């Protein structure tokens, strides 16, 4: 869970940096996309690593969920959370919704069957056309909000899982996790927002 989560999070950062090139302009963005398609080994290597990571991450989720319900077969009539964060308590909700989003996202921009105009040679145009549809753009923003929540807990939690906890560093690690998760949200959301606002067209 920790290792696959970090692999996925690492990809998220790279993907964000790539996508932000949309603000430079159509040619840069399309050139970047074109370049990626030429790097066959890198492209398919990354896709394979991501597929394996997603599969293992979801497999761990299923196992942990099964253990969770068998470890507490009778629920409390009343349960009052004390200090845990909303993000940490909703990992089993934010995760599956993000998974559903990933499927939609691939259908939308990679395969081109998302229901908005699609031209395989013009990723920039696809993004603009996609986000001109307000419900689609909002769905992306909401999904990024959930990914942000997932990572807010996950990016600090994976270090605890791997055995890192120290009174001097752990508060800073939690702060850094929140900041990174927040930046990921703002970065990804800026694109649909910019298209809706007409800044990218």
């Amino acid at each position, binding site marked *: 869970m920790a290792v696959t989560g970090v692999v996925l999070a690492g990809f998220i950062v790279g993907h964000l940096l790539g996508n932000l090139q949309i603000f430079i302009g159509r040619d840069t963005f399309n050139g970047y996309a074109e370049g990626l398609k030429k790097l066959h080994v890198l492209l398919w290597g990354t896709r394979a690593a991501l597929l394996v990571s997603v599969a293992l991450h979801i497999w761990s989720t299923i196992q942990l969920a099964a253990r969770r319900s*068998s470890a507490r*077969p009778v629920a409390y*009539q009343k349960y009052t959370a004390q*200090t*845990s964060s909303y993000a940490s308590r909703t*990992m089993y909700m934010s995760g599956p919704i993000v998974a559903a989003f990933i499927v939609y996202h691939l259908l939308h921009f990679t395969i081109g069957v998302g229901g908005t105009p699609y031209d395989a040679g013009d990723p920039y145009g696809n993004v603009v056309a996609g986000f001109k549809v307000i419900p689609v753009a909002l769905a992306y923003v909401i999904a990024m909000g959930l990914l942000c929540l997932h990572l807010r807990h996950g990016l600090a939690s994976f270090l*605890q899982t791997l*055995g890192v*906890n*120290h009174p001097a560093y752990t508060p800073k690690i939690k702060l850094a996790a929140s900041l990174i998760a927040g930046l990921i949200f703002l970065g990804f959301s800026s694109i649909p927002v910019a298209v809706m606002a007409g800044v990218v067209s």
Partner: protein
Amino acid sequence: MRLVFHIWRQATASAPGKMVRYESANMNPDMSMLEALDVLNEELITQGTEPVVFEHDCREGICGSCGFMINGIAHGPLARTTVCQLTLRHFKDGEELYLEPWRASAFPVLKDLMVDRASFDRIIAAGGYCSVPAGSPQDANALLIPKPEADRAMDAAACIGCGACVAACPNASASLFTGAKITHLGLMPQGQPEREIRALRMVRQMNGEGFGHCGNIGECEAVCPKGISIEVIARMNRDFAGASITERPKSGAAEDGA
């Protein structure tokens, strides 16, 4: 002082249970929660009703016998306090209190608010000890332990094994308990020889008992009456990972040793 109780009543381990409402006007703000149940039980006995079973021993917060959920919080609303030390002055007159037993498949309910925590004993038996020769004691200062290490070991050793950590965890994980024992012994020189085998055996026993997996949520440390930090869980994970990687296949002679 008047209190309304909704208490989980379950006659035997296999019988179905349910929440039952009781009311008593004979409460006193200076009573502990267990004394409140004593008073309620006196009333139940005079009414010909079975008294509520709950576990207790020292009633001074050190033995770890007592514990149940009060309004969804393990050991009730006061931090770092067991139910035996929790006084009624922390509740309002006429307040409704929901008392439920710890819920975990590894802590089966025996009766009412009492659960069987033998699973904790088996985790300890799996490795929560130092195998020392029981000869004559050595000189007191023969083993030097730096004060900060001794303090941290003592903080972990404060665990009374009450089970609140399991009860509060959404996954019903016993990681805080097991981590506290592994940390307590692993910080002492006497605990070093068996440090790896201890982590392996205790964690495996914990998993085998059917406790859930830690999600690093932190509810356990919030309700721990001894304020033990989830730092001990990270240390357990570290010791377990290290020991798993270096574990050797069993060879005849070293069968049961470290």
